[in-house]
């Protein structure tokens, strides 16, 4: 169970990105985070693995407060939290397999990894993960030779190399067309249902939220506006989350 308590993030220049946000996520749950651009979704996800340092508040996971963890502990915690990104964040000039293997860095011996030595088990695991998302035949291509959908699959395979217990997905389908979006989302669903990984996924499209998420939380200008099942987002709620001028589409 992941417990976020009174999380606040103020960026330099007094920009309030998260304002006293609290919620809990059960193990094995698929949680969607919705809200307008700039509402604090990305900041929230990044505060969980501390790519962004929270200003105040707690992120308690398995009894440990991630927000207070020392640097060493943090690296150890991060390797159990996978993350996929809107812009995939692959290293373009590296091979696909290298990108996937980099998901293993938290586990391997640092000195050996610096000279590109990975164990046979890690190599086999990388092949298996690429197989799973259907990009095994692209393993030796450069990452930037792949299409957008394929690149996001590399991102998922990389995150799965961490044998994660939590998967953070920061608008994973926002740069993809609707068909690809469903394909990527179903990979995340697999991971959630077959591997029992907790998924926290920020999304723009409500139909995706309805289709995949067990529960949704909504942010508006850093404030938690909604926490409940996706079906409970009616028109009134919708206007609360997205503002009075917003109209439902799709």
């Amino acid at each position: 169970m992941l417990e976020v308590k009174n999380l606040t993030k103020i960026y330099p220049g007094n920009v309030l990105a998260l304002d006293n946000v609290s919620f809990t996520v059960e193990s094995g749950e698929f949680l969607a985070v919705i809200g307008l651009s700039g509402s604090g979704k990305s900041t929230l996800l990044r505060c969980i693995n501390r790519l962004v340092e929270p200003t105040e508040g707690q992120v308690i996971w398995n009894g440990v407060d991630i927000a207070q963890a020392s640097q060493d502990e943090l690296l150890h915690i991060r390797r159990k939290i996978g993350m996929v990104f809107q812009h995939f964040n692959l290293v373009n000039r590296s091979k696909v397999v290298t990108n996937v293997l980099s998901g293993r860095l938290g586990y391997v011996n640092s000195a050996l990894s610096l000279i590109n030595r990975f164990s046979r088990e890690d190599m086999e695991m990388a092949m298996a993960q690429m197989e799973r998302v259907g990009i095994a035949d692209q393993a030796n291509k450069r990452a930037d030779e792949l299409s957008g959908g394929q690149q996001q699959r590399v991102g998922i395979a990389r995150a799965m190399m961490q044998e994660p217990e939590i998967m953070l997905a920061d608008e994973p389908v926002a740069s993809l067309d609707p068909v690809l979006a469903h394909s990527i989302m179903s990979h995340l669903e697999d991971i959630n249902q077959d591997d029992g990984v907790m998924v926290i996924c920020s999304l723009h499209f409500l139909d995706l939220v309805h289709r995949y998420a067990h529960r949704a939380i909504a942010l508006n200008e850093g404030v938690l506006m909604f926490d409940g099942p996706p079906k409970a987002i009616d028109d009134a709620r919708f206007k609360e989350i997205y503002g009075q001028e917003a109209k439902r589409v799709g």
Partner: protein
Amino acid sequence: MRNLRKKPVVRWLIIVGVIFLVVVVYAFGFSVTDVNFETTRDEVRLTQLTRILRALAHPDVIEFEQIEQDVDVPFHLPCPQGSAPPINVDTSGAYVVVTPACAGPKDTVTIEGFKFLPNTSGPVNFIAQSGAKLQLGSFETDSRGYFSITSDLPNRQPIEEAQAIRATARQNVGGPRISRTGKLVFDKIVETVFLALLATTFGAILAVPLSFLAAQNLMSEIRSPLTSISLTLLGWPIGVALGGAIAIQIGRLAESILGDTAFIAGGVVLSALAIGLASISTVPRVMERFSGISAKLVRGFGYVLAGLATIAISYLVAYTMLLVGDALVDTLGPLGFLGNFVFQLGDSLRMLTPASAALIAGGTLGSLGGRVGQQASDRLDSRTVRIINLAVAALAGAALFALIGAAIDWLYQILDLTRTFVIPAILGAIGGALLTLRVDPRQPLPMGYWVYFVTRTVFNGIRSVEPLVLVIVFVVWLGIGPFAGAVALALHTVAALGKLFSEQVESIALGPLEAVRATGANRAQVIKFAVVPQIVPPYISFLMYRWDINVRFSTIIGFAGGGGIGFLLQQNIRLLDYRAASAAMLAIAIVVASMDYTSSAIRRRFV
């Protein structure tokens, strides 16, 4: 709304004022740069200019086998008292007639030649009694072998005896061949290219790691609490001193068993075994970050053992290379430079071993101190941390200032322990203590930014010193020659490339960095997997560009004694041998142009 535009009169006044100011500025410029167009029309200077330009247009690269035909005619300068003695000219072969037959200094005479080889050319010289040659002019014979020139006689001391005027006709025979100057230029231009290559290579090897320290985006996120910073600062000098001292001791040990092959082989095998054992016991395939204290001690012991064994092997290899290289120089003959290469590599390994040992030990102790400090800061309560901080920060401040004091003492020879050690140490201690009281004990301070700032400052300092000036320093240390030039250029390359490289690091995409960091990778792994792949193409591009620059620089570095073709160029300009200078300039132009094409071709391939 009020019209804010100025009135036309004011605008005109401003324009006139500006024009006046510009005129004054340029007038002053003309005066200080001695602009004088009258000199450009001076007859004498124009003749000299023509002569030099013509010489430059004939680079001394190719020469022919020549046959020379010397024809002398006795000549009195000035005319002797009484009647001039008759001049008997042998008109059967080539002969020279001077009209008048004798004359005073600075008089004008006509010199005619008959029956010379047709269509040849050469100089006409006045041969003084001492044998010195003074050129009167040069001639070209027509198809009948006749020439005529007029010339002013030189201003010489009056001598009674007859001196001589000699016409030398030269004719090329056989095919062209490379002249002596041409060969020299070739040797020197090869030296120049390799000088630039070495300077670029070694400069780049140092610039790559330093560029990370000078990259703001990587460094500014490194923040450590005061405890950690203080212990790092204390760990570095202790580590450097300890590592250096131990390495030197091991070096003595290694030197003492020299000459005994069995001992050397045994040493290498033993050390290799030690490294192997240490690495098996200390390098697990899967890193458990929270191992017990005993496991940490074992691992630490293993690292130390491996380090000592590496030093030993390094020395043994160095000494073996020295011996082998020396032997090779004698046996390889024309390929002796390979032996010298082995010898010099061994020598540099011998020199670099204690230096690297000191640096690595310093880095290890420094980062160990940093980790201990970080842990202490994380685990202990605020008050305890503050008390510890007070002690270690004061100590670190004292150490830092004492080291700076020692450096100042070495430079300025103050030789006063109170002023170079005691006072700085006290000041440093006070500074450290004040810092402790000022900041929250566990607040992370921007240590990375300080390192970034210092590195940048050092780069800018070195870069602002022109290589020509650096050469002067290195010529004193390493003697006149290409080695001094290469080292000076290498140093400049470190600073210049370090800056360019670090700016490339600063402009990389941050997304992949974030992604790799999210996997739990440590800092070194993030750099290896997210930063390095992004910077390889621009690094190669800048490296090629720097080689290009270094080739151009090494052509003039010889002016300050740094070897290469510049030395030849300068020498020939001083000797007024413009044809030889022209050959050197031609060589430079060819090399620079071909470097340009090569480097752009290589760049295209990699980027």
